[in-house]
């Protein structure tokens, strides 16, 4: 069974990958060079990390992963 935390951890890679691709695309087709936009990667990585920390921890054996039983 999956917890929200596991989900956030799993989608962290794909989201970082999308961000990375988008920054290169903006470099080639948009107004901002990658040398100026790269900190966005750090911000996104940090935000996802934060999200993982505050997401409900895994509760093995519990029925519903979301919300959990209080």
């Amino acid at each position, binding site marked *: 069974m999956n917890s929200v935390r596991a989900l956030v*951890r799993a*989608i962290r*890679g794909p*989201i970082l*990958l999308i961000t*990375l*691709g988008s920054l*290169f695309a903006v470099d*080639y087709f948009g107004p901002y060079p990658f040398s100026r936009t790269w900190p966005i990667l750090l911000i996104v990585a940090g935000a996802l990390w934060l999200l993982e920390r505050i997401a409900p921890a895994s509760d093995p054996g519990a029925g519903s992963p979301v919300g959990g039983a209080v």
Partner: protein
Amino acid sequence: MRRGSLVGPLLVILIGVWFLVSSLRPDLPLFDLAARFWPFVLIGWGVLRFAEILLWAAQGRPLPRAGVSPGEWTLIVFICMMGSLLYVVNRHRPWQNWGFITGNRVEIFGRPYDFAIPEQTAPAPKAARILVENLRGGVRIVGADAQEIRVSGRKTIRALQESDANNAHKQTPVEISTQGDQTVVRTNQDRVTGEERISTDLELTVPRTASVEIRGRNGDLDISDLNGPVEVSSDSASVRLQNIASSVRLDLRKSELVRAGSVKGNFELQSGRGRDVELDTIGGEVTVDGSYSGDLQFRDCAKQLKFQSPQTDLKVEKLPGQIHMDLGSLSGSNLVGPVRLTSNRARDVQLEQFTQGLELYLDRGDITLRPAQMPLAKIDARTRSGQIDLALPGSAKFELKATTSRGDLNNEYGTVLKTEYENDRRHEAGGSISGSVGEGPALTLTTDRGTITIRKDTGAAPPAPPRPPKPPKAPGVTSIEIEQH
């Protein structure tokens, strides 16, 4: 139980398709596409994996510990580095013909094999039209007092093995065919079935009266001693023309050098990206269109000369003298106007001995004018930023209005012309020189920022060398530099 991702197989399919298309359609700019659009592969990869994970989560399947594994990240870093490298290489392309860039392994591993093209002749009518189709390689055409076309030359075939080269040589014979009054000389390079790279250098001797048309993609052209018109279209060629008694039309996407001497008819040059142009003794109208990064020289043009580039427009009615132009300057002497010049690139302009009036608009750059002795014609010269220096013949009659919005004024005519400053304490604040000397044409000089100097031309002496910039005046000094003559 965890099912693997779909991204890996899809990526492999994409790469396979790319290589397949690039080998089936070598004309498509696939390298260019890959260099520019590779980031979208990353985005697509990320989106697919993201959707997969959401789907797995919704189905309650176990999720991977990391959405993108360390191994995949290594691949991504590699793709980023290769992609950036490709992008830089593609944008600058200093080595456009390198084999591994265009995907032609013959260029890297192949060797050149030379073949002589035995001389062929074909009878030609007096007013023959000759069409030369040669994709790659140079063409040299000389007009002669003959009634036949003679073709010879040399073929260089780059191939992996000698047998391949021999085969390609047989597949691509140089042919002369005649249809009516048109004679076609074809090198048939497109007939080769392998990936050998062929370059054919042709030497043609044709009847002097013939008209010539050359079509090619890459190769230098040398044409001389013809009475008929010449027409050239090529993707990349340097062209030399000498002694053409009729008109010339050149349509080149890229050219290192275009040199023409003694052309009696109209001369028309269109170039996407050119470098140097030298035209000397042109009897007809000259039209030069395109963007040029080198030196342009026009000398002795008997009729109208029109030059047009994205940055500069120039029109001269006749050019007994010469004009020299490069990226930062334009100088001309002995021009018959009205001369019209507009430039929105920073450019210093120096014109001597021009008649029939001048219209000159510069975005940035200094203007130095020394009109012909007499009679003076209307002049309207403006620059947004730059000095204006006008030297007038001693006996000239004119009506002057010279204005600078920020800059000093130098008036050698003294009190005949009125010098007015916006601010008598600070001459840098601009002002104007105006007034009339006899009854004459209007001379209007305007600069938004820069010094204006009105001088008396002391005769046939060559123009003074560029003067060093004047030191700034001490504030409060209000003397006006006036030299009485």
